[in-house]
């Protein structure tokens, strides 16, 4: 198991959260605020689109050379005194971390926010070994103290308001009790609690935003400084990274240092970025372990179209613009990866074998807002459509597929379709159920909860057109020329070169013969 398996299909999981007005109000405020800020800082860079293209190509380049890159990274981390571990799945990764901690006799370690570690459910596994992992990111601390799960990549406690956090800190943080609900006060309490831990804990666990194969460098991007504390002060550091995070050369870092902060926290640059290569004598942890995690990433890599999903740099811009995320909230996605990216990443990491996860690609109206903001140009809507098809391919015939097939047959010829429409107007035939059009399979059930559906018009366009064509032959020659407003434009136009004037007419005649059948 890992933090990827949704416990219910998305529509069911979303039902509860959609109907919580407080949660929806919180989400709305937060997503709209970040949305506007992001748009402003992105607009500062006139060459943003080029940066997106470059970011996408840089990631693709590493992905299609992934084995070479990982071997080079391993070589260079080792050359600088670090150790590299390979983990096929969550269990292997957890075991490696636990083994390192136990070898040093550590019972407590500090952690920098890392979705990858949530993905492998590291904290729970360490508890089983009697090792306590302390989350040091403010939001992760809130989530941990309240035995909750994160609901957003960037602001994991987005679903909690200040009163809840005040109560939590007063109850759970040693020595506190009289905190106000002022965020400044609450953050200061977290500082007091964690300061001592930073200075005395001997082992830390982090994720990684990027790694550079050429130099063996690992990068962590953060805001609060807890990352720097964890990466600098302990004696032993373990970093867990998905294999897709590796880049080729040091210079490849640049584009992401431009696009990630603007897409993520909507800042020109986030407060702190740390880079280190193996072990530096006299500076920072003197023992460094890098864990390279697969856990389904190679499933994604193997699919030529789905592969683009692995470009993701976890900025969360797609969450913040997503109308579905805004209403359903992060928990509805049932995975550590929520929002549009979660809808394509989770099912693929699970090899398209998890039924609940396969409902995620349908959790989208395909509005395309996610693709527009993605700093590495992942065409999320197209991947969603692709995965819907992949998911259906794993299923046998069912009511929906049969209805789709029936609609396709009705639509395969103009005459069939015309006949079906004619029947539909009489309240019969393959497109109709209970007197209303139903070629969206099962449409009526969900549709009429909150929407009305107009009755079918008695006369369709085709009848009108035919009647008109019949009468038109008489006055066809008297038709007026184009009015002045378009004459100029028309004089400029010439038909596209590949269309011969008077060439094959669009299949008008075929249609006539179709009518006889209908």
């Amino acid at each position: 198991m890992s933090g990827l398996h949704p416990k219910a299909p998305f529509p069911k999981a979303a039902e509860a959260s959609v109907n919580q007005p407080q949660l929806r109000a919180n989400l709305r405020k937060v997503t709209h605020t970040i949305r506007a800020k992001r748009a402003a800082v992105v607009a500062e860079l006139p060459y943003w689109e080029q940066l997106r293209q470059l970011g996408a190509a840089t990631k693709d380049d590493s992905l299609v050379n992934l084995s070479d890159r990982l071997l080079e990274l391993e070589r260079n981390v080792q050359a600088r005194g670090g150790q590299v571990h390979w983990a096929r799945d969550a269990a292997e990764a957890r075991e490696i971390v636990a083994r390192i901690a136990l070898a040093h006799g550590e019972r407590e370690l500090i952690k920098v926010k890392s979705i990858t570690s949530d993905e492998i459910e590291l904290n729970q596994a360490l508890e089983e070994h009697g090792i306590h992992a302390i989350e040091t990111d403010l939001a992760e601390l809130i989530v941990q103290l309240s035995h909750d799960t994160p609901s957003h990549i960037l602001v994991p406690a987005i679903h909690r308001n200040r009163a809840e956090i005040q109560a939590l800190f007063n109850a759970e943080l040693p020595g506190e009790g009289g905190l106000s609900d002022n965020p400044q006060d609450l953050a200061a309490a977290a500082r007091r609690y964690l300061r001592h831990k930073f200075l005395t804990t001997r082992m830390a666990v982090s994720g990684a935003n990027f790694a550079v194969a050429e130099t063996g460098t690992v990068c962590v991007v953060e805001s609060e400084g807890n990352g720097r504390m964890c990466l600098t002060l302990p004696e032993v550091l373990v970093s867990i990274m998905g294999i897709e995070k590796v880049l080729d050369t040091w210079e490849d870092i640049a584009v992401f240092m431009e696009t990630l902060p603007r897409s993520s926290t909507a800042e020109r640059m986030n407060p702190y970025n740390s880079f280190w290569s193996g072990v530096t004598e006299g500076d920072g942890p003197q023992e460094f372990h890098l864990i390279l995690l697969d856990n389904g990433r190679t499933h994604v890599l193997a699919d030529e179209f789905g592969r683009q999903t692995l470009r993701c740099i976890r900025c969360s811009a797609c969450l913040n613009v997503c109308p579905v995320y805004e209403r359903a909230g992060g928990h509805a996605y049932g995975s550590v990866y929520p929002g549009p990216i979660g809808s394509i990443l989770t099912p693929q990491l699970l090899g398209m074998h998890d039924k609940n996860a396969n409902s995620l690609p349908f959790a989208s109206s395909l509005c395309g807002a996610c693709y527009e903001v993605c700093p590495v140009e992942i065409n999320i809507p197209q991947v969603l459509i692709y995965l819907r098809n992949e998911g259906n391919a794993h299923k046998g015939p069912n009511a929906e597929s049969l209805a789709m097939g029936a609609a396709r047959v009705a639509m395969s010829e103009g005459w069939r379709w015309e006949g079906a429409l004619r029947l539909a107007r009489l309240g019969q035939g393959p497109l109709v159920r209970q007197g209303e059009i139903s070629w969206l399979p099962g449409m009526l059930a969900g549709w009429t909860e909150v929407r009305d559906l107009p009755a079918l018009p008695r006369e369709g366009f085709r009848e009108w057109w035919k009647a008109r064509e019949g009468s038109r032959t008489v006055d066809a020659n008297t038709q007026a020329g184009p009015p002045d407003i378009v004459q100029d434009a028309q004089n400029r136009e010439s038909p596209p070169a590949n269309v011969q004037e008077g060439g094959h007419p669009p299949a008008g005649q075929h249609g006539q013969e179709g009518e006889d059948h209908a």
Partner: protein
Amino acid sequence: MKVDLYLTCVNDAMFPRTGQATVRLLERLGCEVRFNPCQTCCGQMHMNTGYREDALVLARKFVREYEHAEAVVMPSGSCAAMVRELYPQAAQWAGDDELLRGVQALESRIFELSEFLVDRLGVTDVGAYYPHRVTYHPTCHAARMLHVGDRPLQLLRNVRGMTLLELEGAEECCGFGGTFAVKNADVSAAMLADKTRHIQDTGAEACTAGDNSCLLHIGGGLHRLRSGVRTVHLAEILASTEEEVFA
């Protein structure tokens, strides 16, 4: 110019007036409009619901029937986007090179209505008259896949007698998304609720858009609320004149 009207299945079944308006409008602007009765559906519903093979049958049919067209005009952003954006992709997924070549050759002659008027005919004032307060919802596929930008607004601003009211959160999806509205009815309803509230806040008598499937959804919501606000396709406003108010 000879123009092939591709009506789309939703209009064919449910919105004949949109088709009639498109014909009137294009003829008024001097086009020779043709309607190929073989047409059925572009296959978008099949594709987006995950039935690619069914969709490909309809895609091949479309390309066969329109490969020689001078211009194909669709009063629907999402169907135009299906043909221009998703046909090539679906052809690649299926390894159908013939379809891919066919679509690529045809692509530049496929137009959503506002694109055709503004880019191909070079008009933004179509001589329309529509004495109502109207707000405009830019549909997702027209905005983000076709990038029609403000073309529909350019056209609407030149409609005489009409008051165009700005819609808050205009670029946000109405929650339709084909079978999404059914499969994820709760989320879709929540999106629709925000959209209809914003529309009602404008004080408009009518909400317009370039796509009747979105309008079917929005209109269904407005009707259920007994809001008194109606929906009307862009083509119907543009076809209206002082002699004949179309919608």
